[in-house]
């Protein structure tokens, strides 16, 4: 086990495995997520990356921000690509052609590459049981192509393909619950995390790396361009997402659900929505019903999660 102590002073002495000089937008949440994931462990890591903001901005021509072996091939196949790398690793180690250095395999994808176009390839890789961790940085839309709606886009949001129009006020559907869908694959570890709770995120990464088999981590990743917010609020907004229970922090380990950080006081959803321009139209009087609907959905999801967590507690007590 190489789980290292998560003390900031100690961590700061270490080498970051993703370099500055990348070209993500100013104030983007995704590099913070990647940095925290890679920093959580000293295991050697190979990563794949779905086409998207993170991919196009971290590896351009001869400039790569990655200090670990990294591969991008296309949009919908980060999971399939890393599963091939992992299979080759197993094959070469088994045949004695490569030394076993306990290498860990990670795939990074945005919500478009995970919830939508990469869904099948991810589902397949999880079912096959590769020893890998898939990490979705979920910013809730196709940000790289210019803020188009994805199945991760929250209800009501204004995007370039579901604009808040005179007749249709933004996205009318709730988001796909990807974390639960991945849990339904029966894989040993699924979790949801936020870069604002770095210790929680890194603990989850550490735990996941100690588990053989497929793991899935869904991480909220603010995008100030798409969320129509400020360049300095990535951490503040992800914190509000947690405190309003829009983005609960939990894990499902071998089918047992546990809420890892429960907000001391559940804040109203509008605290998360208000600072974001993408929800601005929901605050006009004629759309008041949308705010209610959004709050009710979050409440229902949160209550469901608490029930599942309580069931997990009860199981443990038995």
């Amino acid at each position, binding site marked *: 086990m190489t789980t290292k102590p998560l003390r900031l002073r100690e961590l700061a002495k270490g080498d970051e495995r993703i370099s500055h000089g990348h070209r993500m937008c100013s104030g983007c949440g995704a590099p913070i997520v990647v940095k925290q994931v890679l920093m959580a462990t000293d295991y050697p890591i190979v990563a794949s990356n779905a086409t998207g903001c993170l991919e196009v901005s971290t590896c351009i*021509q001869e400039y790569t921000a990655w200090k670990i072996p990294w591969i991008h091939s296309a949009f919908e196949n980060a999971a399939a*690509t890393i599963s091939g*790398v992992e299979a080759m690793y197993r094959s070469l180690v088994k045949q004695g052609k490569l030394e076993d250095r306990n290498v860990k395999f990670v795939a990074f994808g945005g919500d478009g590459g995970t919830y939508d176009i990469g869904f099948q390839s991810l589902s397949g890789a999880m079912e096959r049981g590769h020893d890998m961790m898939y990490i979705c940085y979920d910013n809730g839309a196709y940000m790289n192509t210019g803020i188009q709606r994805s199945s991760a886009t929250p209800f009501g949001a204004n995007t370039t393909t579901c604009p808040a129009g005179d007749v249709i006020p933004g996205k009318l559907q709730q988001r796909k619950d990807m974390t639960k869908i991945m849990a339904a694959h029966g894989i040993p570890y699924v979790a949801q995390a936020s870069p604002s709770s770095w210790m929680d995120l890194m603990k989850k990464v550490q735990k996941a790396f100690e588990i053989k088999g497929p793991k899935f981590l869904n991480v909220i990743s603010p995008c100030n361009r798409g969320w129509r917010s400020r360049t300095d609020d990535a951490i503040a907004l992800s914190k509000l997402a947690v405190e309003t229970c829009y983005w609960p922090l939990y894990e499902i380990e071998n089918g047992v659900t546990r809420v890892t950080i429960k907000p001391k006081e559940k804040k109203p959803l509008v605290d998360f929505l208000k600072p974001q321009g993408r929800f601005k139209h929901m605050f006009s009087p004629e759309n008041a019903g949308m705010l209610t609907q959004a709050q009710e959905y979050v409440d229902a999801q949160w209550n469901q999660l608490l029930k599942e967590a309580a069931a997990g507690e009860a199981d443990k007590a038995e």
Partner: protein
Amino acid sequence: MGDIVAVTGNEACAQAFKQINPDVCAAYPITPATDLMQRFSSFVNDGKVDTELVLVESEHSAMSACIGAAAAGGRVATATSSQGLALMWEMLYIAAGTRLPIIMPLVNRALSAPLNIHGDHSDGMGARDTGWIQLYSENAQEAYDNTIQAFRIAEHLDIRVPAMVCMDGFIVSHSIERVEYIDDADVKKFVGEFQAVNPLLDMDKPKSYGPLILTDMYHEYKRAQHEVMTKVPNIVREVAADFEKMTGRKYDLFETYRLDDAEIAVVVMSSAAGTTKDIIDQYREKGIKVGLLKPRMFRPFPFLEIAEALQHLKAIAVLDRADSFGGYGPLFSEITGAVMSMNSKPAVINKIFGLGGRDYLPDQAEQVLDELVTIAKTGKVETIKEYIGVRE
């Protein structure tokens, strides 16, 4: 010498895979290629090979996993057909652009719609611009031999390009034929140890695969890729020469049959060449000087060599087992492009035949040869492109 067996094309290719023992294979079932990988799966599960088999959920993921595995630094193979190849389309370019020597038997099959599972070249022709080497096989023996040679060719350090080994669906993939196998040890020696180039799994030298390359360098990368393809023909010939030393079986960029003194000729690929040769023999007996050219390597296309082989002819019929709707057949386009570069310009006609597994029968070959005889006499071409074997 190895065993002489009665096997199908798929079985022969599975045997080649077994003898070569790739480090990773990723596969997804599709008729008529299914049988190849399912036979290979038995070799894996019976411990006859060391291969890690990745049984993916689609052909797109099959090629993606192959790309990941090949970049990781080992020998990789898969197989597919038709719709499967079409679903891989995006990834074919990426495999070639990333210069990963993946080997893929392509059991040629028609493309939907309407849905059809039988043999034609529509799938392979659709992938001609992907940057893969394409070798077409006439029978099970050639499919087996081409598979073994393909590893040597694709993995050659001067090129590192993926390669497809094509054979006609059902006609070759499922027909039992006499095949001479090569001894396991000889195959192993012939193919050699895999040499990794920039392996991703070299943890001490981290590399990044798959960068974004925009206007300032993309054009140059494509220029480099073009250059690599120009090196392929010599390597194919070198490998064929070594193969002949081992087996006595001769391969080249294309095969000619009674072509040297011919006045008219048919150009056709894969299994239809066999039928055509029989009819050519009959016409020769009647004193008609007819020959055949069967391209083996369709990509890269050996323009100059083929033009030289055809330049003395008066009339040529190019038989395409695929159509480019609204254009000439793909093989016809290549052949006319090639002969245009020569001073003598034979008349060339295009026949589209055998789509969706329609039988290519001796009377179709006769009809084509009769037309060529007339063209050679009159110098007049009435119809350039025409379907043959169509129910009227």
